[in-house]
């Protein structure tokens, strides 16, 4: 191959490097810029002549100096490659999104590589900083995570009431049970049920029944504290876990809820309905073998409330 041919090849490579759609910056061991390509020039607005000889950290004050040096130093020392990804820092240098109009992020997400390069003399060493635009990947991945979170949320919620559905609520109950067992905390479980709900459905229709359930759910939500865990257990049956709540406080809660429900006027169709609830309370007992026994205990108490005439709460008494 003639020398002329090699020169042509070299020229082509230089041209390609200049116009390639990744950022290339050659840095010396003081982090001064020796060269950068067209990508860097276009995005920063600084020509190679303006950038050359100036510190990377002066040109881009947004780069955390210590952080970048800790990544780049091994490249100088060990001649190994280093990488940063957008999950660590969204960008190294703050450039605008390549698509300023339809791009979904204001800035360009970046991955970078720092690669060792041969130096012409032993007293200087150089590295090449390569900057990749990964905005589309980053935005796409974040969207996916958001949708996944929403799907997971949907899988946990009951559509009518927006409370936890039975499956998820029982899972929490199981976890709560294990926690109480381990730390011997006080906690109370309330199961409650709408009195004569079948009559509402039969007399006013299922639409009205749904309205009743929706209203009750919102009363439960308003009455519950942030730490309480409310779920729709069955058709008209609800469960509330009160963590770190001794039974006397749970009684106050159950009574307050009962009164609120009794007082509520529920508009359904052209009628105004009033309902009452019965509930059963069981505080955690270390003798329970699993969470289902806890559930059964409050169910028994709930049954007792129904037996005793409804619109009331009952405490579970072991062996009674």
């Amino acid at each position: 191959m003639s020398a002329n041919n090699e020169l042509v090849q070299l020229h082509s490579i230089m041209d390609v490097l200049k116009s390639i759609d990744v950022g290339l910056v050659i840095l010396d061991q003081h982090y001064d810029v020796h060269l950068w390509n067209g990508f860097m020039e276009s995005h920063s607005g600084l020509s190679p002549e303006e950038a050359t000889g100036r510190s990377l950290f002066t040109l881009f004050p947004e780069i955390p100096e210590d952080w970048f040096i800790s990544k780049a130093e091994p490249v100088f020392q060990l001649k190994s490659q280093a990488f940063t990804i957008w999950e660590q820092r969204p960008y190294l240098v703050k450039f605008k999104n390549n698509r300023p109009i339809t791009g979904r992020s204001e800035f360009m997400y970046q991955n970078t590589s720092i690669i060792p390069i041969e130096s012409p003399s032993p007293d200087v060493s150089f590295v090449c900083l390569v900057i990749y635009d990964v905005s589309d990947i980053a935005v796409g991945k974040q969207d996916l995570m958001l949708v996944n979170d929403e799907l997971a949320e949907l899988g946990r919620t009951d559509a009518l009431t927006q409370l936890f559905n039975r499956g998820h609520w029982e899972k929490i109950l199981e976890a709560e049970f294990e926690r109480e067992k381990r730390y011997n905390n006080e906690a109370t479980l309330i199961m409650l049920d709408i009195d004569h709900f079948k009559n509402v459905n039969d007399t006013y229709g299922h639409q009205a029944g749904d309205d009743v359930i929706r209203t009750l759910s919102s009363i439960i939500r308003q009455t519950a504290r942030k730490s309480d865990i409310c779920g729709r257990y069955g058709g008209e049956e609800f469960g509330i876990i009160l963590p770190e709540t001794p039974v006397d406080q749970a009684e106050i809660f159950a009574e307050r809820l009962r009164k609120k429900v009794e007082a509520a006027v529920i508009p359904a169709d052209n009628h105004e309905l009033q309902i009452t609830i019965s509930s059963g309370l069981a505080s955690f007992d270390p003798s329970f073998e699993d969470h289902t026994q806890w559930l059964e205990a409050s169910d028994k108490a709930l049954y007792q409330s129904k037996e005793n005439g409804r619109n009331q709460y009952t405490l579970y008494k072991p062996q009674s």
Partner: protein
Amino acid sequence: MTNQLITEDQRDCYQELSNVAMGQAADRLAQLLEAYIILPIPKINIIAPCDLHMALSGVDSEDKASSVCQGFIGSGIAGEALLIFNDTSFSDLASLMKYKGELDDQTQLELLMDVSSVLIGACIQGIGSQIDVSFSQSHPVVLGQHVSVANILQDEHTHWDQSLTVEIHYTIENMSVDCELLLLFTEDSIAKLNQRIDYLLD
């Protein structure tokens, strides 16, 4: 496990190659952490996708872990490195790396990236230099943080049948730092690797 793809001699040779590369990587890690790295014996296997989790003898598949992967290719030999950290490792690792402040997900990601660039880079280059291949590395990708190992290695969408696997289980003396480095070479790379290994064996 079928092992017709490599002979016993070749397996020994891969083990020796990995040993040298792993030693170099551990040396760099020791410099980075200023700690004594316990060197294990690398395990060489031919495995199928469904056996991938079994290759991870050092971590329980129910344990929560964080993981980074990175592809590499050179002279037609391709593969992927997988670094899996048991989540219990991070507090000790943070103190070794002199990270201050809260050990949140972001800090853990930094630790993961710092250690993986040292370990993966050194191992790949270590093996490459012995068989005279210069590997170029792709960008690392986070496979997951705080997920079960079984989830990291979902085998639903695999498009490979067998791979040559080097498993290296790093631990650090008196520390609960526990990480597993897997180098997986694709099936079509094995013949090319064998050729280069045979030079060394002659």
